[in-house]
């Protein structure tokens, strides 16, 4: 049943990806190649034939699926390169700055959020306020300000890029500020959700019964409440991994880092539609995989789902 849901979703979204450039105003050819491509007429005709744009939509649609099956994501005339290797090359850098924050943010956010939801104190209120402010700030705005303060004014970190010399220390120096920022963002989201979740779970009878059994305060939180309260976080963190390649979009822009996010940004700037669509396709696949993984983990942690 669930599998059918994923297959249908994948089918619908990929079809959407086919439909968008053809349904949008303007010449489909331009919509598929990108706007900064200037070609002479004979070449245009040739490409048009090659891409099957003369064919009826039904056959174009079949061709589209055949290309996907062969991992052929098209050709970027802007970068003069097929889209797939371009994307793959950028992915690893994005992974480098995105994966650590997701893990740090998940651990930090759920732990602190759980404690804050369990017992209210002056400290937890202040903590909540700080995370709330981070949660409410557009990521790029906070990134801009931090870059201005720590890079421009204090000169503690480089202003742009992944590396200058390429040594490990040099790379860490470059990525430390973006990684810290993204960790804070991820932590703040998880903190808010986990805190609310614990506040809700706290009212449950099983918590009272755990206390009646003689469990001490923190034992109740970590042996009983935590797992129940963390269930909603599972899906969110899994989805974060699904969005891992686009999640760093703004950070990469502000810090001028040549990752997937920046690829998407330059594709936007030059209206390089093949790259844009290829990236969208990769993100879609990742997000749907993440949904599957979330369901599996959820099933392991919540017997009620598994039992059904």
């Amino acid at each position, binding site marked *: 049943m669930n599998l059918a849901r994923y297959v249908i979703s994948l089918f619908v979204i990929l079809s959407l990806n086919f439909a968008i450039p053809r349904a949008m105003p303007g010449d489909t050819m331009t919509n598929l190649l990108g706007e900064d491509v200037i070609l002479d007429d004979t070449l245009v005709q040739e490409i048009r034939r090659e891409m099957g744009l003369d064919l009826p939509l039904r056959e174009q649609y079949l061709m589209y699926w055949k290309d996907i099956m062969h991992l052929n994501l098209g050709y970027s005339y802007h970068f003069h390169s097929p889209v797939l290797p371009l994307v793959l090359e950028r992915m690893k850098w994005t992974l480098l700055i995105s994966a650590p924050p997701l893990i740090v943010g998940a651990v930090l956010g759920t732990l602190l959020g759980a404690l804050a939801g369990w017992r209210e104190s002056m400290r937890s209120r202040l903590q909540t306020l700080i995370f709330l402010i981070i949660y409410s700030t557009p990521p790029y705005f906070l990134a801009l300000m931090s870059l201005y303060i720590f890079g421009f004014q204090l000169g503690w970190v480089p202003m742009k890029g992944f590396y200058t010399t390429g040594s490990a220390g040099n790379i860490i120096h470059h990525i430390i500020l973006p990684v810290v920022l993204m960790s804070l963002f991820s932590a703040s989201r998880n903190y808010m959700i986990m805190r609310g979740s614990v506040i809700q779970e706290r009212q*449950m*009878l*099983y918590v*009272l*019964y*755990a*206390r*009646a*059994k*003689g*469990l*001490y*305060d923190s*034992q109740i939180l970590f*042996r*009983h409440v935590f*797992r*129940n309260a963390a269930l909603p976080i599972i899906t969110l963190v899994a989805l974060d991994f699904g969005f891992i390649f686009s999640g760093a979009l703004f950070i990469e822009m502000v810090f001028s880092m040549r990752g997937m996010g920046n690829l998407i940004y330059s594709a936007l700037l030059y209206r390089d539609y093949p790259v844009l669509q290829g990236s969208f396709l990769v993100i879609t696949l990742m997000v749907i995989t993440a949904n599957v993984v979330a369901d599996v983990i959820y099933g392991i*942690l*919540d*017997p*009620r789902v598994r*039992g059904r």
Partner: protein
Amino acid sequence: MSLLELRSLSVTFSTPSGFVKAASDVAMSLEEHETLAIVGETGCGKSVIANAIMRLLPENASITGSVIYRGMDLLKLSEREMARIRGREISIIFQNPSAAFNPVHRILDQISEPLLIHLGISKHSAIDEAEGILCALGLNGAGRLYPFQLSGGMNQRAMIACSSILRPRLLIADEPTKGLDHGMVNAALELIRSVRDESGASLILITHDLDVALSSSDRIAVMYCGEIVEMGKTEDVLGDPAHPYTEALRESMPDRGFRPIPGNTPSMVSPPAGCRFHPRCAFKMNICSRERPPLNNSCERSVRCWRCI
């Protein structure tokens, strides 16, 4: 010395709609191996007493008075000291067993938990012991399942096992028969009585069902609107009620023809002045609405009524 003694115990909840006086000036005592039933309508404060003894009330509750258990005042203990008493010395059985278990843990892990935290034995032997107890209850194999996979009755048996696994000296059963059908009621009571006798515990049985009280308790306390109105030997009190409320409660039981008590349960925020039962009482006198009657002690029976002075 009594096992448990409540001295002028009062519980007040602060809520958005005002202060709810859930229990006022409750005094009672419980001997070793004795069973005391607390009866009354829903919302009369009987469950509050149970939770106050174990200090399980929510944060918006304020408690005054004292709860003397084996010579120590439980209300004066630190939270950590109290945690050592809960589950080991004093245990409770809740009325909604399916919600009292954690949905994401196996029954077996939850039943063996008191062994783990109070005795510090190994996980393996705790599980073994819990498994033995489940088998004795006829729940073979249920331990590997999760609460949602068990029926309400099975969950209840599992919870009784869990609450009595450390042979507590005092067992509190909070409405253990509520929501069960007739056949199940007797089985549940039978089980509670047998774990009580096996561990030589005293029992506080909280119920709205007078038949349950009659069949299983030595003494009974009748509560109305947060107060004890009558207390004494169960057969005496229920056989010949002295307080009009006890009488009315008895008449409202199914086998007596379901005659409802006239009027509504009073507000706990601003309870009636004088005797709290006077607005619904058939024997109301002038003094009843003016002055609050004391709990009068005479020959093993306490009654809070101006007619019984």
